[in-house]
């Protein structure tokens, strides 16, 4: 059985401006139709394979993000969608913004752009699929991210 034939994704919005979110949803709707790759948007982290994160992380949403990441079963792949999720984007200097998603949880693939086009997001999901297969073969597990409260990362 191939996991990559039907990956289930969970879409997590941490501190995003909605722009990337509506493009992620647009991927799932008829024009771009990610379902033809077997991609299904699922509400619960317990059944998800790919975590699609939009938005830079802030001090309140950081624990939500860690919590959801820890609940996803292995093998799991994290896809950071948009400039904010990748690096913090134009908000990286804001006082409430920690930075990109990779400051908090390990990220496997990035989709740049503000906002990325649905084609780019689909490309990112397809790239994530091969990483997912590799992780499954190599039995690579995502490490547990500890909930410590609203801490500041060491390089901030």
């Amino acid at each position, binding site marked *: 059985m191939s996991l990559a034939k039907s990956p289930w994704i969970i879409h997590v919005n941490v*501190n995003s401006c909605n722009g990337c979110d509506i*493009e992620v949803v647009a991927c799932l709707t008829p024009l771009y139709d990610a379902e033809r790759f077997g991609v299904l948007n699922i509400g619960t982290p317990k059944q998800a394979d790919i975590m699609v994160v939009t938005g830079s992380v802030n001090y*309140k949403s950081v624990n*939500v993000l860690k919590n959801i990441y820890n609940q996803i079963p292995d093998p799991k792949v994290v896809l950071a969608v948009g400039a904010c999720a990748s690096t913090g984007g*134009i908000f990286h200097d804001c006082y409430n913004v920690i930075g990109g998603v990779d400051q908090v949880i390990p990220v496997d693939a990035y989709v740049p752009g503000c*906002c990325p086009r649905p084609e780019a997001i689909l490309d990112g999901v397809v790239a994530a699929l091969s990483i997912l297969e590799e992780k499954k073969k190599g039995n690579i597990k995502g490490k547990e991210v500890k909930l410590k409260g609203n801490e500041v990362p060491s390089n901030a």
Partner: protein
Amino acid sequence: MTTVIPFGPQHPVLPEPVSLKLEIDNDVVVGVLPSLGYVHRGLEKFIDTKDYNQTMYICERICGICSGIHGITYSRAVEKLFDVEIPERAQYLRVINSELCRIHSHLLWLGLFADGFGFESLFYECWKYREDVLDLLERFTGNRVIHSMSKVGGASRDLTKEQIDQILKTLDDLEPKVKNIEKVFVNNYTVKKRLVGLGVMSKQLAYEAGTAGPTLRGSGNAVDVRNTADWDIYRDLGFKTATEKEGDCYGRTKVRIDEIYESIKLVRNAISKLPDGEIATRVKGFPTGEAIMRAEQPRGEVVYYVKGNGTKNLERLKVRTPTFANIPSLLLMLPGVKLADVPIVVLTIDPCISCTER
């Protein structure tokens, strides 16, 4: 005995993180406690470091759905500080951009709402039609979501003859499509069963709670900033304020569908009256003084306050967004609603959390 059930911040029907603590008694909501801050970035402070032209791009990124109107309202507020008159063609281009934004936002909401009450095919239908509008916006502004069409002093992009023909043709195709989905939203038995009589707000209560936008008009108050604010273009173009008397989820849905038709008419009128000429004037110097600008977003009234101090950076930028005004009315609507209907009532105000928290 009451039970407290958390709704959000991560919830299948909510595209954005907002947390509501629902106090439940026997499956009926008796109390609600909202918790915000999951999308707070601190943009009003952030603009300290940017000059007033760059701030336009920050304002557009307050929210990705109504981004065009955010940018336009900010530009108009700063133009008021400078006391400059922008070319008439730029005003019309802004109206066209605003109304296309409104059409796409309402179709988006109708889709998410249909998904909220479990009507998957209707959700897909709405989003399919929305792509037509996004194509227009992309041809016009160069981008699907963040448009950056407006700038301080006018518009940064012009419409060509071919683009105008394309807009008119797509809108002609779009109107019967919207009629199709309207039939389902208004007449379908299952939809009516879910929406009629749910989350009722009386005319008086909606007014007193300071509600804005379609939520206010769904309760029978004909308040639309496009009519009342000091932007003459809309009065010249002429449009009807859509209202419904019901004050429930069904009424608010009908208001939004009617507004799509009105916006289509407005775009057509604006194109027919589109004057020739320049699209931007040069703005020189640094802003001083303070100004307030109001505009009607898809979700309701947005208020911009800007204060300049004679340097290139603005001293203060304050934004009052429609969802901020609508959250108190949501708290009034929810008590008495069954737990299973909570997502529908929450969606019915068209919550835009990233606008609210900035």
